[in-house]
């Protein structure tokens, strides 16, 4: 009864105050909008400043290299040659451009070129599929007709013809994201359970400590080589492409240490108060782990997972490069060796794409963390 009365009083009061409250909220919202506009403004300003500095820097480098080329031509071949080189550089002809840090506009142009390239390749793929359609249909029909014999192993099934041209930039990015996700999941499934187990037992922690300390600082290149040695042997006699497997395992093993250490630490340092609660409530071991220890160490586990994800994304380039997996790492390496006029700009495009995807992945992890964990974290 008493509660009903208070509730009613409250609702009456709200109805009287409604216009006032709505006015306050609008003012508050305006203030909030102003606040977010300010934030946005500062971000835009800092981006502009960055691009401006980059532009000036690349221009200075460009001039330095251009002047050197002209001076060298003058020294080696005389005035006429120097003039020709100067004219060539001024004309923007691609054969004599200085090969240095590309300017922001060059990177932008390369990005557009890569996008155009994506559509060209897409069209290529469609054309390819149309061209091969009759042949593929024949092969399919052959496989169906001879299904019994194929199953018996008398005849080998024929492979359909697939697109074997170069991959577009988008394909490359997708391959890299797949590699990182596979590696991240591998790290998750190895590091979290092991972390929990060694976090729970001080003696196991001691037993594993040397192992962690030795393998934690191992470089991505060495991880790649280790994984290569093992996977190569496991794949012996199998001609299929194992570069993806090698690269995701290497990425996972290289990146899992942060999660392992953080999970172990989180589990080992659960507040004694919570442990006491678990003891007083007489929770079973299983319940204690899943209802008290894990929720309490979730923030640290997630911190570890975020570090793992960013490390995975970081070491990806080196590992894909070595493994010849068709991802961003190989793209960067091939562009570097290619030495075409826009190679440097493409490398920078890849760099920015890597950075932006890394940033988005971290936001994603942060969102997941805040959704499942009891304390909210502001991303930095």
């Amino acid at each position: 009864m008493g509660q009903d009365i208070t509730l009613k009083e409250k609702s009456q009061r709200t109805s009287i105050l409604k216009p006032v409250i709505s006015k306050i909220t609008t003012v508050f919202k305006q203030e909030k909008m102003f606040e977010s506009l300010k934030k946005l403004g500062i971000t835009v300003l800092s981006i502009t400043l960055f691009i401006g500095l980059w532009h000036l820097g690349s221009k200075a480098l460009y001039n330095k290299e251009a002047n050197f080329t002209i001076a060298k031509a003058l020294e080696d071949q005389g005035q006429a040659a120097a003039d020709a080189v100067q004219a060539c550089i001024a004309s923007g002809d691609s054969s004599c451009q200085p090969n240095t840090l590309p300017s922001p506009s060059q990177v932008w142009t390369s990005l557009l070129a890569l996008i155009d390239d994506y559509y060209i390749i897409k069209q290529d793929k469609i054309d390819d599929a149309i061209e091969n359609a009759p042949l593929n249909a024949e092969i399919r029909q052959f496989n169906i007709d001879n299904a019994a014999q194929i199953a018996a192993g008398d005849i080998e099934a024929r492979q359909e013809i697939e697109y074997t041209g170069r991959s577009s930039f988008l394909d490359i990015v997708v391959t890299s994201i797949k590699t990182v996700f596979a590696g991240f999941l591998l790290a998750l499934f190895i590091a979290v359970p092991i972390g929990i187990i060694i976090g729970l037992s001080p003696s196991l922690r001691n037993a594993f400590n040397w192992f962690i300390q030795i393998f934690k600082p191992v470089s991505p290149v060495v991880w790649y080589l280790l994984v290569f040695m093992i996977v190569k042997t496991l794949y012996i006699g199998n001609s299929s492409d194992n570069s993806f497997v090698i690269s995701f395992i290497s990425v996972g093993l290289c990146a899992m240490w942060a999660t392992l250490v953080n999970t172990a630490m989180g589990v080992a340092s659960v507040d004694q108060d919570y442990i006491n609660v678990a003891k007083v409530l007489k929770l079973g071991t299983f319940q204690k782990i899943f209802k008290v220890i894990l929720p309490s160490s979730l923030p640290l586990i997630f911190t570890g997972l975020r570090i793992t994800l960013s490390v995975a994304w970081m070491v990806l380039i080196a590992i894909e490069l070595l493994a010849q997996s068709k991802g961003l790492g190989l793209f960067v390496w091939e562009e570097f060796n290619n030495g075409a006029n826009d190679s440097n700009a493409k490398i920078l495009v890849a760099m920015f794409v890597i950075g932006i995807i890394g940033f988005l992945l971290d936001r994603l992890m942060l969102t997941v963390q805040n959704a499942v964990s009891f304390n909210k974290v502001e991303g930095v």
Partner: protein
Amino acid sequence: MAYLELNNVCKTYDTDVDNTEVLSNINLSIEEGEFVAIVGFTGSGKTTLVNLINGLLKPTSGEVLFKGVPVQGTSHERGVVFQNYSLLPWLSVGQNVLMAVKEAFPNRGKAVWKRKAAHYIDMVGLTPAINKLPKELSGGMRQRVAVARALSMKPDMIIMDEPLGALDALTRGTLQDQILNIWGKDKRTALLITNDVDEGIYMADRIIPLRPGPNATLGPEFKIEIERPRDKTALNDNPTFKKIRNEIIEYLMDIGDERKSVSLTEYILPDVSPKHYVA
């Protein structure tokens, strides 16, 4: 036979440097339905004593008997209200209590658990906050959740370790009344650890001062023969209250002085001077 009995209980914590005996020769017996308060300075080993009784710690020597049986680990028969609430921050008020109910009555089914949890939350007046997380509550509300959680397991004895220590005077008063109310309803045995003499006198049947550690022991007991329900405002003019209060405070002050005088031992300093001292 007493309900809870401590016989010559000693507790030593092993450290690298030396073994400090925190509690020595604790003898205590509490009858069924009794409300006993233990008063002591901070750092005198009160929490250690509580943990010995609730089974989180084992005595180094001596024995703790509950209903005549030695205490072996924790038990649902002894509910604990911790000093710092110890609510699980990722669970709501309802879930915190529900967790305890589930453990105490494992075979009852969801409906019973929920009803029981709701009942005890209502008992401490927190029904409107049932879905809130502990961090959204005030200190007093959190402590009430902790009380509800301890009670929801239907313990035979409730042990409270400075439950109101972190609260302001007004909230403290209301909560004291609430706890007394609940205790009065089904007369469970209660042990209250506190550093507030007035609180002890207001709530308990008996007060026992804990002489400060290391080597803390229990002092002489003070019986409080003031009829219940006690009126807080009238209590201040009650001659029995005044007398007991003065006696206990005097006793504690004397101990405090003793403690100070102990620390006045003279240290002999080595005769040292700077090596290359030039006047």
